[in-house]
């Protein structure tokens, strides 16, 4: 008990997690655990200023302010017992409750609500309070009770011969147990929402709407977007109510960063549905939120969700394009790409040659989404290889046949061989994608070309041609490669063999 009193004092002086407090309650738990190994229970009786065990005083403190005994006694607690099996967690919870100093704290209530498995306590009602109870008055009335009984039996059509057998069959017992388990696990919030919605289905009552709005906040705080959507769906039926307006602020929206990064996928998906109710006012904050996004797929989904909000009026995104923050710009551009409106290109025009490669990359992605190959082709001369590659990949995907001869001439130019292999390969891919039948002839020519000088340097062109032919992969083309593999020219035969192997 002395150790317990010291632990309480330490918790009152420091925070419960403070090392000084731990120095008191850790040994307390150890002592109790050792005792409870050999004894089923430790029981304490509480008096006004004294705590005793088996009639022996183990704690005395007459100072009301500091006496644990007095604090427990004042709350009606007369007996506390710790039972074998007491866990450290339970003891800490118990200490936390009894260490509270405020006079308004109801320790008994908190102990009850603590729902301890291995701590029992006995509480009495305030004995100084007068509870008046008397036997209810009884006056014999002039009533024919037998007639009344017959009347009830007749009215209710009660058959007195019907046996009442209240025993539960095993399957009934199981059904009931399942229902109980379900009821114990179900949170009150969805049930209450169903109730309130059911009420509103019969009558529009402002107080009920206000309660739902409060619950909506609770749901958002708890990241329970499923139930939040149920509320929003219902309240959206009233044109004079905008249930989500309250949440369209920067601090709240940026506060959802946990949802986009660490929440369960299901929660995230529900969040996506929830933000579809937002107005365009939320767009800048949602874009700001995206800058905290760490997961690529979720970021994509979020962009699509914002695009949905902004689709009717993409100009809402225009102001964001003035921002200096690269992340904000990239996300805004991506959203514009998802919207694919007529204004998108106009809005992006000033950023087409932005100095930051990430911006240009994102613009190419948008242009690809919008099938703007002509504009993409301009990036083939970009200073950065990564951008040129991205442009080539986009043109490959879009099948922009007009570019074919331009590509061919670029490939045949002397400078082509100065490029990195990755970019060269993308050129060939793009050529194949946009070339039609004619491309096989060109590739064949490049594969078997007679070269007198700088043969080694040209071997890269043979490899690329062979690989592209293998990619086309028709029987005729594979025959070409097979024949090439038999050529005496080692450069040609090895390029063809390699391409065939990869096939």
């Amino acid at each position, binding site marked *: 008990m002395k150790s317990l009193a010291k632990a309480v004092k330490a918790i009152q002086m420091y925070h419960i997690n403070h090392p000084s407090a731990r120095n008191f309650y850790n040994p307390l738990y150890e002592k109790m655990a050792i005792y409870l190994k050999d004894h089923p229970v430790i029981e304490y009786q509480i008096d006004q200023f004294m705590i005793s065990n088996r009639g022996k005083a183990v704690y005395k403190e007459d100072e009301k302010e500091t006496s644990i005994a007095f604090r427990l006694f004042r709350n009606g607690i007369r007996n506390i017992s710790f039972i074998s099996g007491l866990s450290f967690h339970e003891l800490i919870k118990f200490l936390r409750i009894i260490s509270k100093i405020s006079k308004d704290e109801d320790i008994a209530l908190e102990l009850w609500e603590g729902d301890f498995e291995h701590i029992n306590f*006995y509480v009495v009602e305030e004995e100084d309070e007068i509870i008046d*109870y008397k*036997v*209810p008055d*009884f006056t014999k009335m002039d009533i024919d009770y037998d007639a009344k009984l017959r009347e009830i039996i007749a009215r209710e059509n009660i058959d007195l011969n019907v046996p009442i057998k209240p025993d539960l069959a095993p399957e009934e017992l199981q059904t009931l147990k399942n229902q109980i388990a379900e009821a114990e696990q179900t949170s*009150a919030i969805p049930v*209450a929402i169903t109730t309130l919605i*059911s009420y509103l289905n019969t009558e529009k009552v402002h107080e009920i709407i206000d309660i739902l709005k*409060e619950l909506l906040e609770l749901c958002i705080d708890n990241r329970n977007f499923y139930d939040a959507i149920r509320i929003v769906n219902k309240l959206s039926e009233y044109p004079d109510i905008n249930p989500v307006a309250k949440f369209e602020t920067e601090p709240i929206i940026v506060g959802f960063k946990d949802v986009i990064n660490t929440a369960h996928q299901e929660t995230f998906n529900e969040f996506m549905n929830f933000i579809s109710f937002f107005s365009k006012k939320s767009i800048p904050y949602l874009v700001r939120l995206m800058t905290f996004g760490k997961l690529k797929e979720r970021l994509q989904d979020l962009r699509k969700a914002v695009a949905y909000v902004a689709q009717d009026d993409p100009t809402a995104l225009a102001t964001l394009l003035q921002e200096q923050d690269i992340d904000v710009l990239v996300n805004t551009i991506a959203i514009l790409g998802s919207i694919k409106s007529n204004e998108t290109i106009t809005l992006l025009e000033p950023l087409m040659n932005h100095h930051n490669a990430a911006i240009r990359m994102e613009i190419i992605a948008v242009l690809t989404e919008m099938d703007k190959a002509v504009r993409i082709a301009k990036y083939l001369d970009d200073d950065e290889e990564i951008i040129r590659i991205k442009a080539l990949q986009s043109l490959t995907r879009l099948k922009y046949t007009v570019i074919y001869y331009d590509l061919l001439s670029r490939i045949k130019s002397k400078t082509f061989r100065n490029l990195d292999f990755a970019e060269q390969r993308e050129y060939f891919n793009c050529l194949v994608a946009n070339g039609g039948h004619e491309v096989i002839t060109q590739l064949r020519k490049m594969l078997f070309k007679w070269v007198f000088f700088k043969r080694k340097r040209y071997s890269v062109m043979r490899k690329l041609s062979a690989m592209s032919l293998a990619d086309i992969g028709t029987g005729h083309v594979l025959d070409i490669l097979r024949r090439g593999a038999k050529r005496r020219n080692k450069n040609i035969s090895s390029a063809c063999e390699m391409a065939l192997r990869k096939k």
Partner: protein
Amino acid sequence: MSIHKFGTDIIALLYALVKAVQVYDLNNAVVQTAAKKIVYSLKTLLNIYSRVQLVRYMDYVFFNKQRLRFEIDGYASLQFIHDKLKTLGIKSLSFLPEIDKEEMIIFASLFKKKKEEFTNGYSSSRFKRILVEFSTEEDEVPDFLREGERIKRTYFKALKVTRNLMQNLWMNQPIDVKSSRRIIYNLIDSLTQDEFGLLTLTAIKNLDDYTYNHSLNVGILALALGQRIGLSKKSLAKLGSAGILHDIGKVALPRELIYKSERLTNEEWELLKKHSDYGIKEIVKARGLDETGLISMTIAYQHHWNYNGSGYPIHNKNESPILFSRIVRICDSYDAMTTPRMYQVVPYLPHFALRVMWKLRNVWFDPLLTKVFIQLLGLYPIGSCLELDNGEIALVIRQNQGYSDQPIVKIILDKDGKKVADKVIDLSMNSGIKVIKPIYAQKYGINPATYFM
């Protein structure tokens, strides 16, 4: 593991062993295994406790001073052991360390015998590690059951809190939320000690204070039913609060309507029905939006929804009331039927109220919960006045678990109509006396409340 769980496990193992020795030879593997299991468990417990003791008092079984509640789970084994202890006249059974399998098997085999044979067959020299204490005519009430005064105090304090809560809501005064939260735990504690103590007090009907008494009684009945089906303490706290608050919407109605002594007109009925709707707002005022508040508002709204989808307020018939609402539906109807009111001076006798509910199970009431409710109250609930086949008039003072039609009664009038003092009969104990029918106590000028307070 809690003491309660230890107790129910030992009861289940003893049940298995006694059943096994009734069917098989003592050397049979089934008997040997059952004995091995219980001895192992007892030895484990005897490492923690110096002795393991089962005590039977009236219709209770205590394991190391902790009352084992009749819950739907383990009901059969507890009822069987309780009945065996009762018919064999055993007050307590103590198991001591060093108990072994052979002693356990031979002792269990005595359970097949009749009371006299058992008494003759048992001797402390034969059973050194199993001590039996036999019941006497006037067994002393165990200390832990001398709770009558405390329970009464708890009940009337709860009534006061309920009254204050409703009156303050009525008059738009601040509400003492802490007191109403606290009283629920007091009620749960009282029920855990002695569920029939509080149920007895719900049987005392007060015509003057119907609204408050009814609210509290529904809360207590719901708690008792919830406890019987094995709800956790946390859920019980929510259910109890919700039970007390189920009719709170009535504070939003004109007082004249609530206290009207004549039958209500159709318009007035329609208005009264609105209390389910109004309950939501009043509960938010009283409790806020914590878990209990949210559950309570749902129950206030659904407590007139029937099991078959009918009832009010109008709702989608496919939407079922939640479990707690179905509990409160039963308790509310029972208390309403059995309580006198201005326009129902002669209420339904509890037995007939239960018959109505039995008839309406599956229609108005959840059939499984109705069964458990009847198990809990018995066919003649506490406070019922009965005419016996020997001409005596008796008052039901206690239920007999497993014998729902054979309660423990106090004889009030003899066959000549003369008052009888201090005569209590357990109708399940071969008394040969049978119940003819339940009757109105008022017919004989009996005020049941005087016997319970």
